């Protein structure tokens, strides 16, 4: 028994150390990539010249009960600074006035669509074109979920690139230009994402970000540090190896032909963004075609995050359930033996350090606590475990702050720095553990096939009213 406990304690300690070491390795990779990126693009801010050959983009949005925001969102999309693009909104069976507001504001008229749907969706009721905005179209269809709505929009998109965004995403005027650059420089790129930042506490005018600030809400503050970790080194690091397993649903650009050939977004998963990305890796690796799924470190999209624990918990459980589905359904990426870096490195990493992480982390804490309580392990050993688990977590969060400082430096005021530093420390005493519990809930929901529920995020929508 004692031997078992001794071995097990080393297992859990080893797991926590390996987890944090993995983050640190990604950090180191990201350091080099970010530095080179900032150097290479340093003079680009002197002038932004469009040649007219920039690939045209179809921006696709699925809207469900977005009456509060939809008009403002569409107006701001139509003002993006990009040579040629269209906006295709899918009203996904909204029960509120989303469609009526769009009809009124943009003078929509019905038109006949003859194109056969390449991706199956719930039935479409009508297609609309705007009399005042030639590059705006709207689909009205039966409710089928976000993925289904995006697929319907993709079906009628006329441009070679599709940009999928959330209805409440806040873009910058040059967001499209920045995230399209990988497609311009490398013909093998099939998908690209950008950094998503937290909009809470920021100032927005006419749907565009005009000032960056920190929220007062602690839950939102925790998520700022989280997002920095996830995007500034998580994605940048994996991108270096062409092993990025997710292009965020809040803002991502794909080659339309590739997405259509892959079957579009999966309509029943809760993590349609990750599932599509992993599936693209699996299918393209299987075909042996050269490709890249890449990432632009620039902050291109801002999103409002939950400010209460209940909503956040539901979101995190949903995300983990989506992760579970994505990894399980596409396990061939690992098992086929042809997965490359995505299959051999990123996939097992995701399985061990993300998918099963809630079980291992929670079990680790509980096991060590019980073992210490019953005197099986010494207080020193228990403290060492806690310091390793929590201390390294702090190190990783502070490293993310360093990367932010070295790259985009979006929080220049000293007070902002101390706030983020305090949050980077405090989040390790309860918030990250709470996250673990929520993710475990998501995992159990997936295991026991509980019916998926999106729930409603309490949106302040404050950004829509400013300016």
């Amino acid at each position, binding site marked *: 028994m004692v031997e078992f406990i001794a071995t097990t304690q080393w297992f859990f300690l080893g797991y926590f150390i390996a987890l944090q070491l993995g983050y640190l390795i990604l950090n180191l990779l990201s350091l080099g990539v970010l530095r080179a990126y900032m150097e290479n693009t340093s003079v680009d801010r002197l002038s932004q010249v469009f*040649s*007219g*050959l920039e690939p045209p983009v179809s921006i696709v949005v699925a809207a469900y009960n977005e009456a509060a925001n939809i008009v403002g969102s569409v107006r701001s999309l139509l003002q993006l600074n990009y040579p040629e693009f269209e906006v295709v909104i899918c009203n996904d069976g909204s029960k509120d006035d989303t469609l009526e507001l769009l009809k009124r504001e943009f003078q929509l008229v019905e038109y*006949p669509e003859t194109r056969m749907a390449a991706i199956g969706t719930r039935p479409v009721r009508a297609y609309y074109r705007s009399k005042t905005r030639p590059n705006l179209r709207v689909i009205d269809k039966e409710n089928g979920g976000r993925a289904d709505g995006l697929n319907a929009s993709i079906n009628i998109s006329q441009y070679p690139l599709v940009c999928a965004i959330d209805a409440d995403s806040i873009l910058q005027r040059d967001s499209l230009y920045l995230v399209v650059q990988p497609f311009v*420089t490398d013909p093998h790129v099939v998908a690209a994402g950008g950094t998503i930042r937290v909009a809470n506490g920021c100032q927005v005018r006419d749907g565009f970000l005009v000032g960056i600030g920190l929220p007062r809400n602690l839950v939102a503050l925790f998520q700022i540090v989280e997002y920095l970790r996830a995007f500034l080194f998580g994605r940048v690091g994996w991108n270096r190896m062409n092993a990025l397993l997710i292009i965020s649903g809040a803002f991502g650009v794909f080659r339309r032909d590739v997405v259509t050939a892959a079957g579009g977004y999966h309509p029943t998963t809760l993590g349609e963004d990750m599932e599509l990305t992993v599936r693209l890796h699996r299918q393209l690796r299987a075909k042996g075609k050269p490709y890249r799924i890449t990432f632009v470190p620039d902050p291109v999209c801002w999103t409002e995050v939950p400010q209460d624990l209940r909503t956040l918990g539901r979101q995190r459980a949903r995300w983990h359930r989506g992760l579970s589905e994505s990894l399980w359904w596409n396990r061939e990426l690992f098992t086929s033996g042809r997965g490359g870096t995505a299959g051999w490195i990123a996939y097992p990493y995701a399985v061990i350090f993300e998918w099963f992480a809630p079980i291992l982390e929670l079990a680790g804490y509980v096991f060590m606590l019980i073992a210490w309580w019953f005197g099986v392990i010494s207080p020193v050993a228990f403290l060492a475990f806690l310091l390793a688990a929590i201390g390294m977590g702090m190190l990783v969060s502070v490293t993310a702050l360093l990367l932010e400082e070295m790259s985009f430096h979006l929080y220049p005021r000293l007070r902002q*720095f101390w706030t983020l*530093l305090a949050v980077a420390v405090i989040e390790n005493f309860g918030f990250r553990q709470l996250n673990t519990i929520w993710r475990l809930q998501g995992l159990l929901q997936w295991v026991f096939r509980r019916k998926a529920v999106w729930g409603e995020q309490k949106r302040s929508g404050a950004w829509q009213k400013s300016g």
Partner: protein
Amino acid sequence: MALGAGVLTILLILQIIVLRELRAARERRSQRFLQRWRPLVYDAMSGSTIEWPAIARRDTETWLWFWNQLQETVRGEAKATLTHVAAQIGVDRMALRRLASRSVSRRLLAIVTLGNMRDPKYWDLVVPLAQDPHAPISLAAAQALIRINGQRAVRELMPLFAQRADWPVTRALALLEQVDAAVVTKAIEKALPKADDAASLRLIEFVGAGDPVALQPVMVQRLRHSRDPQMWADVLRHLNDPTHLNLVRQSCGHKVWYVRVQAANALGRMGAPEDVALLLRMLGDDQWWVRYRAAEALLKLPFLQKDELYARASEAGPAALAVLDQVAAREAA
């Protein structure tokens, strides 16, 4: 391990604080510098004679950014005045020092500066940089050479434009569009017959920066030696000379759908009455985009009345009428 993590965390925090302090000090210094120099430069641009103060070495970065940003915003005589100011202050010396830097961003700023000086004496210094294997450096050098002498740059660098696959087509085209279209046309005319398929594809992308009408003969000639469907599609995209109608008509039956799309587009631009039947057949193509563009082309033909079109299209079936309706609805919106 835990202790190590703790020490490392503290070191990182200190590093962040130091970085922030350094950045803040740099920005304060930069603001003070600009507060002093902006009025001087604006006075010089409005004709005053200025006794220029010396620029401290650590302010040269700020000065170079400021000067280059102004160069991007002013036009005409103001540009020439700015260049004169730069010569008086010794901007070229600052740039030349940075050219040898190991930092990519410093070298890029140096190259941009030399380009904005527009002085032929820097030509030989910048030309080798256009061959640099690092794309951002070589592109910046190409831009600088175009600013120094656009005509000479296009003549001498067109082979690079054709061969450098790491130069994004959009960026390369944006450079070529800064030069007189006649110069670009001549350079493409000279390069295209000798180029391989990959280089030819790039050169055809650049036709928009030249004179597409004048370049049609050389493009069509090049096409006769290629089976590359992408090249066929790209050449068709530029054709509007009815002497090439036979080539367009042949392409309407090409096995690759995007070639047929461009063929339909071309017929919409220059089709003759006898091409209506061909376009009506394309309304039944198995590729939706071919049908859509054929419908667009038919509705564009100036000699074909809508009633006549619909009467003839009805013989092609309801699918043909449906796609015509869709295009017509879009035009009406």
